């Protein structure tokens, strides 16, 4: 079946002896790393796999298998049927409670991205929770409006002030006061400039967005049609 030359080739390599087979590739156990500072010698030899520094006195019992417990990032995001993009929402909590805002889209965390627009009611591009919002049936035509892609949860996340490094000034932390970045202003402008012409098309809608929702005598939320 094989040609005689191939047969000869196959036979030519000397078979691996037992000793050679047992001799494995030696995995390096240590590595030498550079170390700073004068008079320290340039390098240290460091073990790659160290011995454990702690052995528990009791064995940790095996956890039972759980089912369907997902981390927050993998949760299913739902949106109320009454909330659709370009719906006018009434904010119920927060600094802007009572204000009517325009809904843009739902972010990956499930929060809603809304905007005032800023020139109408001083609500910037902001996140709100859909539970704390009343969805009205008023809609704007935002079919041609594109919200920038970089408006994600990470963009809107609150920044923590840096912990003081030095022991002296404990109270004087940086980034204490929130400042509106230029990026935010630019994004606000791009989004609002697309929405405002659509708002102007519907008569009286601008005034409606400027007004604030409130209850008065004889007005019952369960009887109102929004």
């Amino acid at each position, binding site marked *: 079946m094989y040609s005689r030359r191939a047969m000869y080739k196959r036979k030519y390599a000397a078979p691996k002896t037992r000793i050679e087979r047992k001799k494995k590739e030696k995995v390096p156990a240590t590595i030498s790393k550079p170390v700073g500072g004068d008079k320290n010698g340039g390098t240290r030899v460091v073990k790659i796999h160290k011995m454990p520094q702690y052995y528990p006195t009791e064995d940790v019992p095996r956890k039972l298998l759980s089912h369907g417990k997902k981390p927050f990032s993998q949760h299913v995001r739902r949106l109320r049927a009454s909330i659709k993009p370009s719906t006018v929402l009434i904010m119920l909590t927060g600094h802007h409670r009572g204000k009517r805002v325009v809904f843009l889209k739902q972010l990956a965390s499930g929060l809603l991205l809304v905007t005032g627009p800023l020139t109408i009611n001083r609500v910037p591009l902001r996140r709100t929770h859909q539970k704390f919002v009343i969805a009205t049936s008023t809609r704007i035509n935002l079919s041609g409006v594109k919200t920038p892609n970089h408006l994600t949860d990470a963009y809107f996340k609150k920044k923590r002030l840096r912990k003081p490094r030095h022991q002296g000034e404990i109270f004087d932390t940086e980034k204490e006061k929130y400042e509106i970045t230029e990026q935010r202003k630019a994004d606000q402008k791009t989004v609002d400039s697309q929405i405002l012409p659509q708002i102007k098309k519907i008569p009286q809608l601008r005034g*409606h967005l400027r007004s604030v929702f409130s209850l008065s005598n004889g007005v019952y939320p369960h009887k109102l049609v929004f």
Partner: protein
Amino acid sequence: MVFKCYMEIGRVAYISFGLHAGKLVAIVDVIDQNRALVDGPCSGVRRQAMPFKCMQLTDFVLKFPHSARQKYVRAAWEKEKINTKWKATRCAKKIEARERKATMTDFDRYKVMKAKKMRNRIIKHEVKKLQKASTQKGSPKKGAAQKALDAKVSAKKIPSKKAEGQKAAPAQKGQKGSGQKAPAKKGPAQKAAPAQKAAAPKAKK
């Protein structure tokens, strides 16, 4: 108070609550103290017994003998044109207005609020003008001024405000005089503009 409407054969009644709430029926026969045999061929109510309590009398009476068949009730109903007559009554209009008010959306409520505000401003303006005129000209004119004011106020009544709110052009306000300075402050500017342009008073629907 002497009663003018009676529960009689042929009386058209409005059903106020229950399964057939809001519909008109004709009383065909009386069963006992509390119930009547009732039929509403033109309003989608089958012939059935109905308690008097859920019926409210209207002004209309049909002419048919007691226990008449549905065919004759329908004939009498259509002859009298009850459906159109009922729609023209104040009662029916009020009911309709109430229903429309209940289904107003948030945006509609805002528009109605603006319309009311505008209208009240116009009325107040007229009142002030008349008051000023009457004080300047002395007391004998006050009676005439009061009558003129009443006429103006009644002319400004808007029967169904919601219709206007929904049309998104509620500039159909009656006005008197051309020297109107409708306030263009917070009120929607587009309303003030057509209001100022109109010289003759617009008829209200």
